[in-house]
């Protein structure tokens, strides 16, 4: 089966760069599944999960991105994430604690962070695409 090269980039470094079978990215208007040979596309992303699958549709890795952009062409998919974290490294309890702390503050910044933290919780709870 064909492969598509996938780059996951955060402002600070290149996080993932390999040939994979399929990627699911959280597009602003809904999730986008990218297979090799996908037509050219530029999309902005919402906060959510980026799922990376191997050739046999086995889940290799999943990441959390808080917004960003994706550029897709038939051979390559590039995701520019604002912040990128591996899903395994997220801890539900500490995020919930963070939300509570943030709710006490009332600034634009903390509101933004709450939105991102909520998206993290949602991503942790979500179980779609775990198996395909």
């Amino acid at each position, binding site marked *: 089966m064909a492969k598509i090269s996938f780059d996951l980039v955060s*402002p*600070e470094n290149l996080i993932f760069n390999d040939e994979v079978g399929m990627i699911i990215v959280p597009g*602003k*208007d809904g999730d986008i599944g990218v297979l090799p040979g996908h*037509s050219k596309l*530029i999309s902005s992303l919402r906060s959510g999960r980026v799922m990376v699958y191997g050739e046999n549709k086995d889940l290799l890795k999943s990441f959390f991105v808080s917004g960003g*952009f994706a550029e897709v062409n038939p051979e390559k998919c590039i995701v520019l994430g604002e912040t990128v974290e591996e899903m395994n490294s997220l801890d539900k309890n500490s995020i919930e604690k963070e939300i509570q702390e943030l709710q006490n503050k009332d600034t634009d910044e903390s509101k933004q962070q709450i939105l991102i933290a909520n998206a993290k919780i949602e991503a942790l709870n979500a179980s779609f695409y775990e198996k395909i």
Partner: protein
Amino acid sequence: MPSLKDIKTQINSVGSTKKITSAMKMVAASKLRRSQEKAEAARPYSSRLEEMLSSLATSASSGEGIIKLLTGTGEDQNYIVVPVSADRGLCGGFNSSINRETFKLVKKLKSENKKVQLLPIGKKSRDFFLRTLKENITDSFIDTNVSSAGYNIALEISAKLQSLYFEGKFDKCILVYNKFKSAISQEVTQQQLIPLDISNKNNEDKSNETESSNKAIYTYEPDEETILQDLLPKNVSIQIFKVLLESDAGEQGARMAAMDNATRNAGEMIDSLTLKYNRTRQAFITKELIEIISGAESI
């Protein structure tokens, strides 16, 4: 004539200075490597972002809101100048060249009857402009320490600039920073940050051609305008981040070169002092000998 002891203490003190400078050189060299790696790691993101932006830029007509980051306010009266310097000294002409260049730029703008504000980044330029152009300073950022704080500090600066921009406080923003050319050379560079200056990145005709061909092929989701509205603020942060990283690497490079020079000078000084020490010692011995011999002769 200095005594032998005087010269000896002098040699010792130059020797310990040499030790310090060579240690600082080593520290700067390892920090330089780290900063360079950071700058290297940030490159894929910014180059991708720039590519996307240039393919989208043509679709922006003059508009309201965020698009103004690209098209400008249509005026050319209020400037904000952002000099990016280091927080610490002992790095040769690194900070002073930034300050000098900024000072010149501010003077030039003022002579054209523009209003100028300053937003220095780094202690060295903040302190310099607090002394010279205090009334022009809007705000400042110090202790940025980009190699450990990372992207967040760039976000903070960009948020500040954008809020000033949308309040209509300035029409154009110019960054003055040291571009990292190699470990031993930096180049003072001016970059227009807001409104985005696409023409300096590419040859304009050429980029227009590729843009139109790109535009025909790509599908945009949700649509070009929405993406552009996300992309433009992010681009400002990324540009600032890139500049901070470059300046950080440049600072370490400049410090390394300066300390290398200082170590070499100290070595030369020790050599010449040792020569002087030996000569003086010789002179003393000869003098004593003459005294003894002439004393013996007189008996």
